[in-house]
């Protein structure tokens, strides 16, 4: 069973690679496009996958950040993410995984409750971001955030590590359950 591990490979020179996992290819493509528009000193690469595990026997660079994209309109997309999470090694969850929920703007189309994804993100101790990827301006802003996160996770920002970022991103409104 192929499991993604964060330190399986040596990092490439000046390279930062993000893996977007989600069922809706069109949304992932658009997000990837928006991210690559950002000006950035590092060499960015975006890998898109429907689900994990990834096909083996493929040469791929070290993955610095995984973002799981859930469409709140589709139970299928949540189910897909839940199953894919099993193929990620525990050490990835020290700041190198994030969740992105899209579709919250259209309340009437949502078949997944906000709290469901919230609990999922809390269970995996990872940040959860909300963004309606179909809206260009929101998508552009989210793309900027993700690029910043990616650079930190790839170690390109001196003095800040993925773990630092994780503790900075913990929202005080939604503390982890044990902290209560």
């Amino acid at each position, binding site marked *: 069973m192929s499991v993604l591990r964060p330190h399986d490979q040596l990092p490439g020179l000046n390279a930062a690679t993000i893996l977007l996992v989600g069922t809706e290819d069109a949304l992932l493509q658009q997000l990837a496009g928006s991210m690559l528009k950002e000006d950035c000193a590092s060499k960015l690469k975006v890998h898109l996958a429907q689900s994990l595990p990834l096909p083996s026997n493929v040469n791929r660079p070290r993955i610095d950040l995984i973002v799981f994209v859930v469409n709140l309109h589709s139970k*299928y997309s949540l189910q897909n993410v839940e199953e894919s999470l099993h193929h990620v090694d525990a050490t990835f969850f020290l700041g190198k995984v994030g969740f992105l929920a899209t579709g919250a703007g259209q309340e009437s189309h949502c078949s997944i409750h906000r709290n469901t994804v919230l609990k999922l993100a809390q269970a995996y101790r990872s940040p959860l971001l909300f963004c309606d990827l179909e809206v260009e301006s929101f998508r552009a802003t989210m793309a900027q955030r993700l690029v910043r996160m990616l650079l930190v996770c790839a170690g390109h920002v001196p003095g800040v590590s993925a773990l630092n970022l994780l503790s900075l991103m913990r929202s005080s409104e939604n503390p982890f359950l044990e902290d209560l």
Partner: protein
Amino acid sequence: MDETVVEFIKRTISKIPMTEMMTVLQAWDFLSENQLQTVNFRKRKESLVHDLVLLCEEKHASVDDIALLDIIYTQFHQHQKVWDVYQMTKEPGDDIDPFDMKHFKYSFKKILQRALKNVSVTFRDAEENAVWIRIAWGTQHRKPNQYKPTYVVYYSQTPYAFVSSSQLRSSLPLLGQALTIASKHHRIVKMDFRSRYLDSLKAIVFKQYDQTFETHNMTTPLQERSLGLDINMDPRIIHENRIEKDRIQRVTREIFGDYPQPRLEFAQYKLETKFKSDLNGNILAERKEPLRCLVKFSSPNLLEALKSLAPAGIADAPLSPLLTCIPKKRMNYFKIKDK
């Protein structure tokens, strides 16, 4: 002229949008070019209609003439009606004489007139050996109601007729009978196939949809609309599941083809099945009678939407055969029971 006829003229002409007025009147060919030139088409609609009604009165327009105008209006606005599809069959030993349009029209009208005494029947020939029929229904004692007509489009070289859905259900058996007998068939059956888009029904019923299909409002498939730029070309984006994506495209193309899909607005499934559950001791599973449930899929273009489900990642490919069989089976109303 009879007041009711004048009212009928007025209401029929008023239905026509200003932008189409000239085209429709010319197609009608009842008012001459000279007469049409005397009318100022730049006036306000009310006033224009008034002038046109006067011209029709001058020319002694009959109910039949106005009914013809109504057919032309409906031909321009087919999507305002919901069309049912009927299929006729012949018995093996039946008449195999070549079709005679005159005889059909005569016979059809006669059958309805004999049964109802008060009924208006108007015909208009169309291409592909088709005829449009407008029927305004009356009874033994009442004049025909010109404002609730039924339209039939019969393709004479085929056993199919398309009938506009109407509230007047009592007239359907008689209509079926008239169609069957006049066209020298034996039985008529209503197919479980219904849509506003007559063109699409035609294309599916006559199996013409695998050629380039012209619709008035063609919507582009979902995947083309959502990809703004040609991001496929950016080498910094890598698709990990390329093989799976290609498989999905291939399966979708095999099922739906490369051509634009004919346009349907809904598919309805009536389920009468027993509840199946993995959990034991489920109250619903213990029911002896089947559960009844109605599932309806609606879309501005249902088949295109189904085609884009798998490529968009919303469903697995191949889709359920219940969805993909719609054009092949020429049905969009299904009843599903336990075997």
